[in-house]
């Protein structure tokens, strides 16, 4: 009796990791093509979708690794993305009950909040912007980017449901 569920769980986990890898690849391979100040953050989507499947500690570790990758690409704010992504992944894993509802709108809202919080924390800790630019970034471009990211997340969740369907860890 334990065979089939274990096989199904492993296949689901495999699909989840494939989906995660595709989103990470999209973050580095597709995002530069889109350009613009309000861009889609595939890495935040990947972290949020993965965090609901794993334990909070592992989610934090995964977020820390993803943040490290981002910081390695932008050494000027080295550590900021690690810290913020760790917090978001851990928080997403703790609040995974929200995803249990498997509601598309709630998923979009959660991605929106996760991306916006990430931008707020990243910009605040990184310290690259000040004054009006900081306000414009946090109140205009970050919400736009978060909304775009949420829309893409909803599309992905709808179109590639086997890859990104939430499952209890």
């Amino acid at each position: 009796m334990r065979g089939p569920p274990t096989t199904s769980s492993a296949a689901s986990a495999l699909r989840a990791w494939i989906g995660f890898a595709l989103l990470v690849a999209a973050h580095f391979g597709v995002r530069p093509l889109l350009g613009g100040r309000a861009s889609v953050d595939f890495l935040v989507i990947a972290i949020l979708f993965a965090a609901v499947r794993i334990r909070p500690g592992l989610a934090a570790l995964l977020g820390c690794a993803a943040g490290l990758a981002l910081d390695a690409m932008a050494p000027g704010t080295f550590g900021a993305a690690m810290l913020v992504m760790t917090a978001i992944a851990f928080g997403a894993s703790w609040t995974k009950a929200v995803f249990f509802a498997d509601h598309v709108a709630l998923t979009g809202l959660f991605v929106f909040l996760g991306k916006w919080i990430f931008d707020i924390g990243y910009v605040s800790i990184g310290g690259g912007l000040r004054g009006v630019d900081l306000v414009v970034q946090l109140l205009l471009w970050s919400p736009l980017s978060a909304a775009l990211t949420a829309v893409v997340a909803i599309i992905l969740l709808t179109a590639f449901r086997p890859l990104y369907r939430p499952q209890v860890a």
Partner: protein
Amino acid sequence: MPRSVRGGGRFDTGLVVACIALSVFALVMPRRIRDTVATAIRGTALSPLVALESRASTVRAAIAARNDVLVARGVVATQALAAPGIADENVTLRRLLGLSSRLADGFVAAELIPARGVESDFTLTLNVGASAGVLPFSPVVTADGLVGMVQSVDAMTSFAITWAHPDFAVSAMSTDEVAFGIVKPHLGDGAERWLLELRSVPFRAKLDTGTLIVSSGLGATYPRSIPIGTVLGEIATPEKWARTYLLKPSVLPAAIGPVLVLLPSRAARGVNGVWVSVTSSDSAARAIAAAGDSLARKAALDELSARRAALDSASADSAGTDSALVRTPLSRADSLRADSVRRARAVRADTTRRPPTTPPSVPPRTGPPPPDDANVYRTSPS
């Protein structure tokens, strides 16, 4: 909250604390060490992602460059398309400058203001008005010929009708002055609407295709010799006693750009010789006619000389009692025109008495005519 999370609380908390500590450490690391670590990560674990990002950036740059190339090509294509138009405009302006130099004075150069009315096809709005001396009924011309006539004038602008306007009419003639008529727009359909008609041409005056039609100067609006159009052919009309010809306008609608408005003073003085094509063709026609008539002219010359010699002899007879001036006969070629001969006779009649009817005491001269000198007057021997 799921049981697995609660059960592994310490493990999760430991990982989170470790991650946060690592992050804070990364934040406070010296810059040199941060750069070293980042470089090492990019060169090892992240190298595929770095390559992927680099390739994506290159693709995006190529797309942007392609867009720039397409935009540049579009600009170049637009400029290439506009180049012939600019060249044509330059040619038009140069020809207009030539016309201005031939007119010398008595005109106003005008630009067209884009039309706003419903009759925009047949009317022009000019950027000159009464302040520049423009008056109603002033002819509007280009280097190609007649465009139309000023119809109304404001202080700074004026409105003109073109030859295509239904109200347009001009007295016209062929350059050899054989055919006279009235030119009006051809009220046909389609492209024929942009042609002209030369109406009321006497039936005996037959015009060939390509004959240049110019203004005749009859009337008070258009001076003589402004090109109007060329004959395309005769068209059938109910009028059996007159001919109607279809004309191709000298000034095509698309070529109407900068124009000149002839002021009344200049129009009154005439524009003969201003349009070179008219003058040259007229001169050529006269030269050909003169060459062809040389024999007849010689015969007429001899006959005229003999007649005047007889008249001179008769005048000499009567000069004994009359000291009136007697003009010598004219024998120069240009004085053989009918009006010159008529004028000479008129002068003679006005200044001398008619000789008596008595027979002359000296027989008429039968030899060659006296020396040619139209401007020499001689007195009779006293």
